[in-house]
């Protein structure tokens, strides 16, 4: 059953319908095999780009769709419901475009943004380091001033699309002043000295390559610094605030996919002479799963509406990420339970859903960090 949605306009309805159509016809038939063989579906991103779905959040004058979060997040959700790696991919791409779109000068935006939003290119976001994940202010990667620009040296861990992206939005240290000494740079994939380590062997999202990016004297012209020197961390945190909504939407999609699978199975599988969905014990598990999916959706949409009207939404985005990904973990785990032995085999996608959900509690700020964001906001509020 497709999710029942109340859309704000006819075109919003059509945009989400397009996402669903592409998801059903182009993504769903490929996901199981590509994930099994760890194939990165670069052509799927090209397809979504041609459909105009890779640039929905950004201004029209640079080739974007100028759509509010309430609409583009539901597109992310539909894509995530069919293929989590792709859903995460479009969310990361949006995250990578965020600094330039929101902090770049007019000149920088007109020079690089149209290409980044064209749908032909894919972005990556380099913030974490091996010893600076939850605490990005502890990063060591350095950008040292040189004639006409900077030389970047260091290594960035857990880069989604690492080695496959066309551009990298990179945070690097320009001064030894902790969180205030970080700057943001837009680095093209072909920059000399930039290389990807071998991809991580992951538990899930195997179709989405994750790698450490090594920076060995990578020269970046000054024009590619986004925002002022030292502004990098606040740009990174603002980007993450929006990025968390993207992940919340994708996690909701993943949970919806797991729920749909479990319900379909529970209607056809019989035990003690009736469909297992008609046994209260199982029916109630499914009811809880449906409640988790709906509440995740309501939570991220509520945060999205705050963002769309320009009100602070940091706490709500953290809550949405926390609720949607914890719910996705519960729902996918229960989907395995509903399918029983079949759920534990790789013949059904339930076990893959469960592996995919786990990382969503970890990336873009672990759920412990989300609680930190929420509790700090509570402490600050008067």
């Amino acid at each position: 059953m497709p999710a029942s949605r109340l859309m704000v306009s006819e075109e919003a309805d059509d945009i989400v319908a397009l996402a669903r159509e592409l998801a059903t016809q182009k993504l769903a038939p490929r996901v199981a095999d590509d994930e099994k063989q760890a194939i990165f579906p670069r052509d799927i991103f090209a397809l979504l780009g041609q459909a105009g779905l890779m640039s929905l959040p950004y201004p029209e004058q640079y080739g974007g769709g100028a759509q509010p979060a309430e609409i583009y997040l539901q597109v992310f959700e539909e894509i995530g419901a069919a293929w989590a790696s792709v859903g995460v991919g479009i969310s990361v791409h949006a995250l990578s475009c965020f600094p330039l779109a929101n902090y770049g000068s007019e000149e920088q935006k007109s020079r690089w943004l149209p290409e980044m939003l064209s749908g032909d290119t894919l972005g990556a976001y380099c913030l974490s380091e091996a010893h600076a994940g939850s605490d990005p202010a502890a990063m060591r990667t350095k950008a040292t001033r040189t004639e006409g620009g900077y030389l970047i040296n260091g290594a960035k861990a857990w880069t989604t699309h690492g080695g496959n992206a066309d551009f990298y939005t990179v945070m690097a240290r320009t001064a030894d002043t902790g969180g205030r000494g970080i700057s943001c740079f837009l680095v093209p994939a072909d920059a000399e000295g930039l290389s990807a380590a071998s991809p991580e062997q992951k538990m899930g999202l195997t179709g989405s390559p994750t790698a450490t990016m090594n920076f060995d004297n990578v020269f970046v012209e000054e024009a590619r610094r986004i925002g002022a020197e030292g502004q990098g961390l606040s740009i990174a945190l603002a980007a993450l605030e929006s990025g968390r909504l993207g992940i919340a939407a994708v996690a909701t999609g993943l949970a919806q996919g797991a729920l749909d699978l479990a319900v379909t199975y529970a209607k056809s599988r019989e035990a003690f002479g009736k469909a297992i969905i008609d046994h209260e014990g199982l029916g109630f598990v499914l009811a809880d799963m449906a409640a988790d999916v709906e509440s995740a959706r309501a939570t991220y949409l509520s945060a999205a509406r705050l963002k769309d009207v320009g009100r602070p939404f940091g706490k709500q985005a953290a809550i949405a990420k926390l609720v949607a990904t914890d719910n996705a973990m519960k729902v996918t785990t229960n989907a395995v339970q509903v399918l029983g032995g079949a759920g534990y085999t790789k013949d059904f996608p339930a076990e893959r859903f469960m592996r995919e959900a786990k990382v969503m509690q970890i990336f873009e700020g672990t759920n412990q960090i989300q609680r930190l964001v929420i509790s700090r906001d509570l402490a600050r509020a008067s």
Partner: protein
Amino acid sequence: MRIIVLVKEVPDTYGDRKLDLETGLADRSASEKVLDEIGERALEVAISYAESHAGTEVVALSVGPDSVPTTLRKALAMGATSAVHVLDDALRGSDLTLTAEVLSKAIERTTFDLVIAGNLSTDGTAGVIPSMVAELLGVPHATNLGSIDISESEVRGMRTTDDGTMEIVTPLPAVVSITERMPDARFPNFKGIMAAKKKPFETVSLSDLGIDAEAPVPRSIVVAVAEKSARAAGVKIIDEGNGGQQLADFLIANKLA
């Protein structure tokens, strides 16, 4: 050139399709409503021609209930220039003759060079509407084309039959229908969806077309409708040396021999 494409809203081909046993009509609430796939292919033919021939106008024409604008919007998002929706309560349950009359009147309201349709809808599956429309318009029809080549003055295409293939040529104006051999239709895109909002969309009624649905002309009506009976178990023949005889007896008894 002005091309009119006949498109139809149908119950999702991949969903449940049910008849309403009270009315004998398709139960439209049983599944999602979509643009018929074969109509999308017909639209693709028209749009690809328009893309390489400036000045071509593609009009998507549909007859159906008040849910049709949603599916017609998709035709506009895919690239049709404008859309016409014939909407009238009197059309509920209309038969082929009335539908063909409505379509031909709607086509005749403006000039046209070419009408393109799918050969067979996925719900009604009558497969005769394109020919009926051509007859009413008084123009030639070239139906069931598996390939098509449109020029300023004629349409050429191949039709595959059980016995072979034939090449068909007709001068314009004409009505053609295409088969599933034609390429898949494109997906709409974001820009198309936004552009669709600004494209002309006309809703017309039967009185606009000068048609009286109650006119005393022969129409086919549904006399009775019943649910398909459940399949009964077949006869199992166990071969204990006389299997051949049993099989022959069964065929004779069921008048299959």
